[in-house]
């Protein structure tokens, strides 16, 4: 056999292709799929929320409580607030579970409705309260979120992942903790209409509980007054347009014929402790 020196004419091992075109084609396909999943998750939230059973909700709530390690530093205070919430719950619509108060040491002036009926009250909020009615309104407002299931919708798309992690791995799995930490509970946002619905709910409960709606707007007025100090900026970002809310509350109570009477003092356990803390 004769050897003929010759180079191959074409290279069969390398496909002639434009790598950039390939890259953008594949990338856009991948992004398309991710966007599709994201949109589907949004729809899934609306689908899941009305169908979630209280038991599963409790499980999801357990994930939150585990990772937040609710520091019930002052059981007395917690008990007092709990009693108030119990009374409010009696006056409000039926919830499939009992509301539980957890006191959390933090300067944040806020209260958060977590799944499973767990209300987190930040100590910063208690310090700002001057009357029982005022505190009751804030707590009833959170109860309103439960009644409207806003607390689940507020979690947004994370709800789907939380649901999967809570049902598959139980409340104290690493994945659940990771999810919760990425959420930042204090910044859970509600829409304006969700907030005003909860406000209306709170007014009704307040009226049923005390016979009048005094103190309902105190908290928002206070927030408005402190707006310039910047300390409560955070609250404003999630609860905007306080003046409008005050106006809405006043209109609503006028239309319902609610009256305003003198306010009840805050329970001594809440104020006393506060004073000793300050010393």
């Amino acid at each position, binding site marked *: 056999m004769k050897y003929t*020196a010759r180079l191959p004419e074409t290279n069969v091992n*390398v496909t002639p292709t434009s*790598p950039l075109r390939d*890259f953008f084609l*594949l990338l856009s396909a991948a992004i398309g799929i991710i966007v599709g999943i994201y949109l589907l998750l949004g729809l899934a939230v609306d689908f899941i929320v009305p169908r979630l059973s209280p038991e599963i909700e409790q499980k999801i709530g357990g994930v939150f409580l585990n990772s937040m390690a609710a520091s019930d530093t002052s059981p007395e205070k917690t008990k007092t607030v709990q009693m108030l919430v119990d009374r409010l719950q009696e006056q409000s619509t039926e919830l499939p579970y009992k509301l539980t108060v957890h006191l959390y040491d933090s300067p944040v002036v806020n209260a958060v409705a977590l799944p499973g009926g767990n209300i987190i009250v930040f100590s910063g909020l208690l310090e700002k309260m001057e009357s029982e009615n005022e505190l009751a309104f804030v707590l009833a407002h959170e109860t309103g979120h439960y009644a409207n299931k806003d607390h689940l919708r507020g979690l947004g798309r994370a709800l789907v992942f939380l649901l999967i992690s809570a049902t598959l791995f139980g409340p104290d799995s690493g994945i659940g903790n990771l999810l919760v930490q990425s959420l930042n509970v204090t910044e859970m946002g509600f829409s304006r209409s969700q907030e005003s619905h909860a406000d209306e709910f709170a007014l009704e409960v307040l009226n049923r509980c005390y016979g009048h709606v005094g103190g309902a707007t105190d908290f928002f007025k206070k927030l408005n007054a402190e707006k310039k100090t910047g300390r409560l900026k955070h609250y404003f970002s999630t609860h905007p347009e306080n003046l409008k809310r005050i106006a809405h509350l006043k209109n609503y109570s006028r239309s319902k014929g609610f009256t305003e009477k003198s306010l009840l003092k805050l329970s001594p356990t809440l104020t006393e402790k506060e004073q000793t803390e300050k010393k």
Partner: protein
Amino acid sequence: MDFIILITLIAIGYFAGTWAEKRHYRSIEQREKTYLHLPAITVKHVDVDDAKVQQVKLVYGSAVISIDYFKRILAGLRNIFGGTVKSYETLIDRARREALLRMKEMASGSAMIVNVRIETSTIGKKAHRKSVGCLEAIAYGTAIFIEK
């Protein structure tokens, strides 16, 4: 910030990788022409007059080629959807041809190289999970030197 770093790495990978690849192919094609006269074949037995054989020698050449960041991302995307990983084809092609050329270089002066084999392996892939993989090709054979 992470996103900017990623984009920069991909861009660097694309431009540097393309440049290096073009240069390498030019060099490969040029050297292939130079060594065209030296046959490298896979058969074990050739008809050569034993008396004329001066020397028989093991010759080998190996080349390590690294993938660039762009190719890695492209192959990663390909991993999702499946199909031929075209971005790795040139790597293997370059590594094998380079290894063959180096083997021929080692065998310079010989009449032919018989029983040529090419093997391929990956390098440095498990040392660090995110490290860019390298590809090694080694070509070896028996060089036969014949009296002229």
